[in-house]
């Protein structure tokens, strides 16, 4: 069991997400930086798809009455166990009654905590992930609060002291492929999009990462709703792009200028408000080989 002594800014139970329900209007969701959750899961001997905690910007204070094997990866939040600094990407064995203090993100945006046995919340539509916009999934469909007591499953697999993680790249450059409505943007807009930098706005969340930068003008008129995917860069009438996130709607009516490649979605997950970001155009072949590499590591 994990007891929440003090919640962080936004702590939510996440796993791989729930693919297969887009036709019902349900986005895939799941850990934004999936490789980091998987890395932490592997360290504690969990299956890759086990549910852990996604912690955003500032982490919680948690108590483990029964002790636990834990590991964390992703953003560096300066974690302490009973006052002792704990290194990221390592296995830590907590004694019964231990307290974990997760601090503020010093780099990146989201950190992942895995506990041996996984967080054992009910499976809804094939996943334990929290779907915050709908208020269901995860732990009671919401972020953690003081006094919550999260059940932990039975330990299953072999834990490891250290394991290689996915090699990380700078998150300030996101690789993109052309979007379905790219042709409707002026040359000026396309040039700005690929050459200027954009700043992540504070109203960004798992539904959409809102950017501020040069106005991108779309020359054509209203668009019929189309199905979209996380990473799609939508441009609403105001001309300021929004990158659709993991909990974003499955259809959208705004033109999509480009798509962040799947292999760079974990980097997108680590961008925080105020960060500058640029887009780099790559070919579809490049994108798919990067995705192939990523999925080989994940497999």
């Amino acid at each position, binding site marked *: 069991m994990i007891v929440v002594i003090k919640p962080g800014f936004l702590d939510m139970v996440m796993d791989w997400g729930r693919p297969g329900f887009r*036709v019902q209007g349900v986005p895939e969701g799941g850990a934004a930086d999936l490789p980091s959750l998987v890395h932490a899961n592997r360290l504690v001997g969990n299956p890759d798809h086990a549910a852990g905690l996604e912690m955003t910007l500032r982490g919680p204070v948690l108590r483990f009455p029964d002790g636990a094997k834990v590991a964390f990866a992703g953003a560096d939040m300066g974690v302490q166990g009973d006052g002792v600094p704990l290194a990221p990407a390592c296995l830590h064995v907590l004694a019964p009654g231990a307290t974990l203090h997760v601090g503020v993100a010093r780099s990146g945006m989201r950190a992942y905590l895995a506990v041996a046995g996984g967080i054992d919340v009910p499976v809804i539509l094939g996943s334990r992930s929290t779907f915050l916009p709908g208020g269901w*999934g995860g732990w009671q469909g919401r972020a953690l609060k003081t006094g919550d007591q999260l059940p932990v499953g039975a330990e299953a697999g072999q834990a490891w002291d250290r394991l290689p993680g996915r090699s990380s790249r700078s998150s300030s450059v996101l690789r993109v*492929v052309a979007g*379905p409505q790219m042709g409707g943007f002026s040359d000026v807009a396309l040039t700005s999009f690929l050459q200027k930098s954009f700043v992540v706005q504070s109203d960004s969340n798992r539904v959409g990462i809102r950017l501020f930068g040069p106005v991108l003008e779309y020359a054509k008129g209203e668009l019929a709703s189309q*199905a979209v995917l996380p990473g*799609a860069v939508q441009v609403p009438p105001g001309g300021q792009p929004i990158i659709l996130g993991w909990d974003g709607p499955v*259809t959208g009516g705004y033109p999509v200028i480009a798509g962040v*490649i799947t292999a760079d979605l974990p980097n997108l997950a680590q961008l925080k408000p105020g960060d500058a970001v640029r887009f780099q155009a790559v070919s579809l072949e490049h994108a798919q080989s990067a995705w192939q590499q990523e999925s080989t590591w994940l497999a």
Partner: protein
Amino acid sequence: MEQRQIIENGVSRETFAWRWVTDRGVRIAAGLATLPLYRMLNAAALPGVAELVPADGSLLVVLKAGATIPTRLRDLLSSHPYDIALADARSHHDINVIFDGMDLPLVAERLGWPRSSLVEGLCAISFVVKFLGFQPGFAYLQGLPVAWHLPRQATPRKAVPAGSVAIGGAYCGIYPAAGPGGWHLIGRTETQLFNPLFSPPARFQPGDTVRLIAT
């Protein structure tokens, strides 16, 4: 048979525009053939295809990790071995609606119809579920006469209550959960439209028909 002809033409490879949506999905501009194509590809269960998502005149084929466009998908699209009769074998839903939406007087005024006639007209329509999106269980119901297509509100409302019945553009829709919304609110229903514990979780499925019943 005229419709069949149109759809068959629509399915020929030459008339479909393909566009990538990120590196993970292909958007096929299938027009009128969107739903039949969705059904056909769904039944074909192609390897490499993770999900199929119909939308307004287009179908998104979401690929599995590392997959490229399956050759069989190209084959299926260039031939047209699907049966449009499949499109008829769907459920019908009667939904009780209280027509007291806060935008109803304005909608009636803008359309130039007395409120009672407008409600009568809405209840006479056999809506077809074209696709779901926007929020879980939110169905885009097609069937409004063209003269009733109103542009969405310039500034969306921050909070529309769950169960609100609304019209926007070419569509009628019912908000399964509370949230922001830019459509014109004409009524409300107590019918639950989405429950993640049900299978399938959404009450309305693509191709279903829906009638609004004034109560």
